[in-house]
C-alpha cells in the first residue's frame, strides 16, 4: 500500500482509539458525578467544579488526537519527500 493510504488508515485509527478512550473516560466521570449529586444534592456545586475541570482535561485528549489526525492528513511534513521520491523512481 502506498504512503497516502497508510496516512488515511493512521488518521482513522488514531481518531477511533482516541475517541474510544475519551468517551469511556467522560462516561465514567459523568456517571460518578451524577451518582454523587443523587446521593448528596447539596454538593452539586463542588461536583460541578470538579466535573468541569475533569471533563476539560479528558476532552483535550480527543482534541489533541484530532489535531494529530488533521496533521497526518493535511499538513504531513513528509508529503513532499514522498512525492519527490516517487518522482525520482
Amino acid at each position: 500500500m502506498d504512503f497516502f493510504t497508510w496516512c488515511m488508515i493512521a488518521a482513522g485509527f488514531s481518531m477511533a482509539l482516541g475517541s474510544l478512550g475519551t468517551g469511556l473516560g467522560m462516561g465514567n466521570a459523568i456517571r460518578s458525578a451524577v451518582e454523587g449529586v443523587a446521593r448528596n444534592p447539596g454538593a452539586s456545586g463542588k461536583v460541578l467544579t470538579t466535573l468541569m475541570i475533569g471533563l476539560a482535561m479528558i476532552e483535550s485528549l480527543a482534541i489533541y488526537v484530532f489535531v494529530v489526525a488533521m496533521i497526518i492528513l493535511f499538513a504531513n511534513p513528509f508529503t513532499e519527500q514522498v512525492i519527490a521520491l516517487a518522482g525520482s523512481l
Partner: protein
Amino acid sequence: MSDADREFLARVAWRNWIILLLLVGLSLFWRSTPLTTGVLAGGLLALAGFWWLHRGLQQILAQPSPQAARAFQVRYFLRLGALGIILYFLIARLGVHPVGLALGLSVVVINIFCTAIARIIRHR
C-alpha cells in the same frame, strides 16, 4: 454552587487568559506568523470550549430535566462539530503551525496542571 467554588472557577478563567498571553508572548520570539497565529487561535478555541462547557453544565445542574439534558446533548455535539470544523480550516486551509496550535489548545490543561500542583504543595 458556593462562593468559594465560583471564586475558584473565576480564578481558573482569569489564569487561562494570563497563560494564553504568556504563550503568545513567548511565540513572538520565533517571529513566525503561523506559529503565533496557531498559539492564539488554539488558545482562544480552548477558552471558548471551556466557557461553553461551563455554561452547559451549570444550566443542566441548575434545572435537571429531560429537556435540559437534550439541550445539553445538542449543544455538546454542536460545540464538538464547530471545534472540528474550525481546527480543519486552521490546519488544512490557513496552514497554521501545528505545534503552536497544540500549545494553544493546551492552555486549559497547563492551567489545571499548575493549579493542581500548587494545591498539592499548599496542602502538604
